[in-house]
């Protein structure tokens, strides 16, 4: 126990005053010699006992009053029960520098708290100081003395990454301790930090929790329908998760250059919502944040989307009006595609096109086959093959490279219908709710033999749509003799989804802090600097080979759910409040109240 005003302790000597008064009073009392006290005793034996007790109680009250008064004035301070001063230990100190600690002055508070706790230990104690999210370049830490530990704490910087104790302990297991080992974690004690952590074989594992704000996180920003044909606008879905147990209302704000759009949203407790934002097609990157949350840092979300532009399609072979009108319905309506027609590919510069549709072509030259192979090797290109009457060798060879073999032509008795459609194939997701596929009739089609993905099958298990990488083969072409699919409402969306499905477009150019970087390419960082790290260490827009990518902090970091008491108990963790844990409890008021209470007690005793 410490005293802020120790000079008042001299006042304790005044305790002698009531004692002196007591004895003086006794001395002052008239002494009466009496023949025998036996009648006095028997007369009021109980009362006499009470009087004697009362006398002692009054003396005690007076002594406690004086002691309480002067102890109260001397401002006694109780030290923390956890941190007895000058404890000698080997302290494995982990300072949480994860992104969630960026809220307000939390990280600054954590550093300050760490300093205070370090100072509680004996100067001879040794420390192993680690950030929860260490740099890639961090060398093996070492046991150091208290002064160095204080310096090292100050050098730790806030990270944009998430950290796990398990990972830290795996990378830097404590060893060669001289004193009893103690773990000391200082941070917001998010549940995820302790994920998969096995109980440590240590008597003391302190978690000093720095309280954090509320916990809302933007989980993901995605295109509502990536395979929808591009128009003037597209729709983004912002998935926001509320990790807290109370509902939250806030505004989703998208900012991209001068463009700004806001939308209010209610998020249920412990749930998530997808907020849809309609964005002009020209805006392909931006920053979204959710206003009304205390922890802004994890609600800032950089996005970069590859919005399908106006694709250039080359239709080679037979002119199929159904196909052309499906791709380009009217000159007055904006078409997401630009269609060119050619009899052969021999004289066409394929570099101008994104997609080639080979319609009813029996065979191609060897040179054309090589051109098509080169075309398929590029990004954002694809070929749809609609077979004709036969398939020549060069064509077969090209298809064989993609493990697709065109077999004999099948003419079923009557017609065949679609038995199976792969709804897990992303372009076909939208057809889950659509009926009517079974009414489509196929009168003639080619039997296809393949080991690759079959996206649709006909009755009799004949593959209808086969897809390998960016090559797609439809078992028949769209002529009235072969099928009536052109007359069904699903025809137009099916054609568009087949096209957008094979161009191998990555719609999400998004990464997380901590993702490994392709270091062979030149990367320009968020501030225009050349980025030279092995992992993304901070969020923002990066440019790789002219392409913009967005790097964000994992939304889980926004889950500020604190580790439960049960989990702490199972991990043998002691939770310490950063203030109360070290707080020297001021007992002044308690002592002064005790003093006052003694005055009241004495008055009561005197009145009885």
């Amino acid at each position, binding site marked *: 126990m410490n005293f802020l005003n120790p000079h008042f302790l001299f006042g304790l000597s005044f305790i002698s005053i009531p004692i002196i008064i007591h004895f003086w009073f006794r001395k002052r009392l008239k002494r*009466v010699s*009496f*023949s*025998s006290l036996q*009648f*006095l005793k028997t*007369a009021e034996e109980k009362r006499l006992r009470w*009087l004697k007790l009362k006398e002692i109680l009054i003396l005690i009250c007076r002594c406690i009053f004086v002691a309480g008064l002067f102890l109260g004035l001397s401002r006694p301070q109780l030290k923390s029960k956890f941190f007895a001063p000058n404890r000698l230990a080997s302290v494995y100190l982990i300072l949480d520098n994860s992104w969630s600690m960026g809220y307000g002055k939390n990280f600054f508070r954590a550093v300050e708290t760490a300093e205070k706790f370090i100072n509680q230990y004996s100067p001879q104690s040794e420390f192993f100081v680690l950030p929860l999210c260490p740099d890639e370049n961090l060398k093996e830490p070492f046991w150091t003395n208290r002064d160095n530990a204080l310096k090292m704490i100050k050098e730790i910087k806030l990270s944009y990454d998430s950290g796990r104790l398990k990972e830290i302990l795996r990378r830097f297991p404590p060893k060669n301790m001289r004193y009893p080992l103690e773990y000391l974690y200082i941070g917001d004690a998010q549940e995820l930090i302790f994920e998969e952590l096995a109980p440590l074989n240590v008597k003391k594992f302190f978690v000093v929790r720095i309280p954090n704000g509320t916990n809302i996180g933007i989980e993901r920003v995605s295109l509502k329908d990536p395979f929808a044909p591009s128009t003037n606008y597209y729709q983004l879905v912002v998935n926001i998760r509320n990790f807290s147990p109370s509902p939250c209302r806030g505004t989703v704000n998208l900012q991209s250059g001068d463009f700004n759009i806001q939308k209010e949203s209610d998020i249920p407790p412990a749930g998530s919502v997808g907020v849809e934002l309609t964005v002009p097609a020209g805006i392909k990157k931006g920053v979204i944040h959710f206003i009304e949350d205390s922890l802004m840092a994890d609600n800032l979300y950089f996005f970069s989307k590859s919005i399908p532009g106006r694709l250039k399609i080359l239709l080679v072979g037979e002119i199929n009006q159904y196909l052309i009108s499906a791709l380009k319905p009217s000159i007055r309506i904006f078409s997401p595609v630009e269609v060119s027609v050619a009899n052969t590919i021999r004289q066409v510069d394929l570099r101008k096109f994104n997609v080639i549709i080979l319609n009813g072509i029996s065979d191609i030259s060897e040179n054309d086959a090589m051109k098509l192979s080169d075309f398929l090797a590029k990004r954002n290109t694809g070929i749809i093959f609609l077979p004709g009457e036969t398939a020549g060798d060069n064509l077969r060879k090209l298809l064989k490279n993609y493990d697709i073999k065109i077999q004999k032509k099948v003419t079923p008795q009557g017609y065949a219908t679609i038995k199976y459609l792969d709804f897990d194939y992303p372009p076909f997701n939208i057809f889950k709710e659509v009926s009517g596929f079974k009414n489509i009739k196929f009168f003639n089609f080619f039997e296809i033999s393949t080991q690759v993905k079959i996206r649709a099958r006909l009755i009799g298990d004949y593959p209808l749509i086969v897809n390998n990488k960016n090559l797609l083969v439809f078992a028949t072409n769209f002529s009235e003799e072969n099928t009536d699919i052109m007359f069904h409402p699903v025809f137009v969306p099916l054609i568009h989804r087949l096209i957008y499905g094979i161009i191998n477009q990555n719609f999400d150019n998004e990464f997380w802090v901590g993702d490994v970087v392709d270091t062979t390419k030149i990367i320009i960082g968020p501030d225009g600097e050349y980025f030279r790290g092995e992992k993304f260490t901070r969020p923002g827009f990066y440019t790789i080979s002219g392409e913009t990518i967005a790097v964000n902090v994992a939304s889980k970091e926004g889950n500020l759910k604190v580790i439960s008491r049960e989990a702490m108990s199972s991990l043998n963790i002691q939770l310490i409040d950063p203030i109360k844990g070290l707080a020297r409890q001021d007992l002044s008021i308690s002592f002064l109240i005790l003093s006052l209470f003694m005055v009241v007690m004495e008055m009561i005793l005197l009145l009885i």
Partner: protein
Amino acid sequence: MEKKKYLDPEVLARISNLDLRAKLVVEGFLTGLHHSPFKGFSQEFADYRPYILGDEPKRIDWKVYARRDRFYIKEYQEETNLRGYILLDKSGSMGYGEKITKLEYAKFLSACLAYLFFKQKDGVGIITFDTKINDFIPPSAKKINFTRLIETIEKANAGNETSLSRVLFELAQRIKRRGLVIIISDLFDFPEQVLKSLRSFRARKHEIIVFQVIDPKEHTFPFFETSIFEDLETGEQLIIQPDSIRESYRKKFEDFLNNYQKRMLEAHIDYQLMRTDTPYDRGLFAFLQKRARLL
């Protein structure tokens, strides 16, 4: 001069006219005023009784025969002196009193009684005691004995604790010859045990007179201030607020006295309460009058 303090002529003038007569006639060898239980040849006529076979013919009263024509025997009471034992309690509690302590009062009383005994030529002895017997002057009618007795009374000072019942019991064993035992004490002991001891005197045919001496303050408890009361015998101290306990004390003390009075009566022991504010001679006079009526 000091001796005369106990023989105040005024006091003695008032009580010497009264005969101190023992209830029971004890054996003695000095002639006095007392009746002897041994009827025989004596000057004091006792009674007539019819002649029965075996009586000596010389004891027949021929004058009565002449008047009544029947044989009667004339009986005489043998006169003898009384052996008196004055038991003076000089325990600490007897030292209590303001103008006159209980012990002083008891000493006056003892001296008066001794003188009465002496004047009647009765043998008188004195025994002073507290926790044990301090002085034991055997009974004697000689003048020198009286002088020693007065000296013993004179030097008696209040001192130790009392153990009245034990001392009385011891004395009952020690005093072989029957006599008049006068106990002068405040009787501050357990009544049951005191009475038991007194009964042992009675068992030995002693006549007992108990003077219980108390101080008026013991009776009325006229204290008001909170004071430290100190026990004169044990030295024990108690801080007492008299107002709060007065009534209760008085009741207890009254019960104590009444209990003695009642139990003494039951045991055929003469008992007299003597307050020190009552002039001792008056108290003694009243007692002797009462004794006279009893005899």
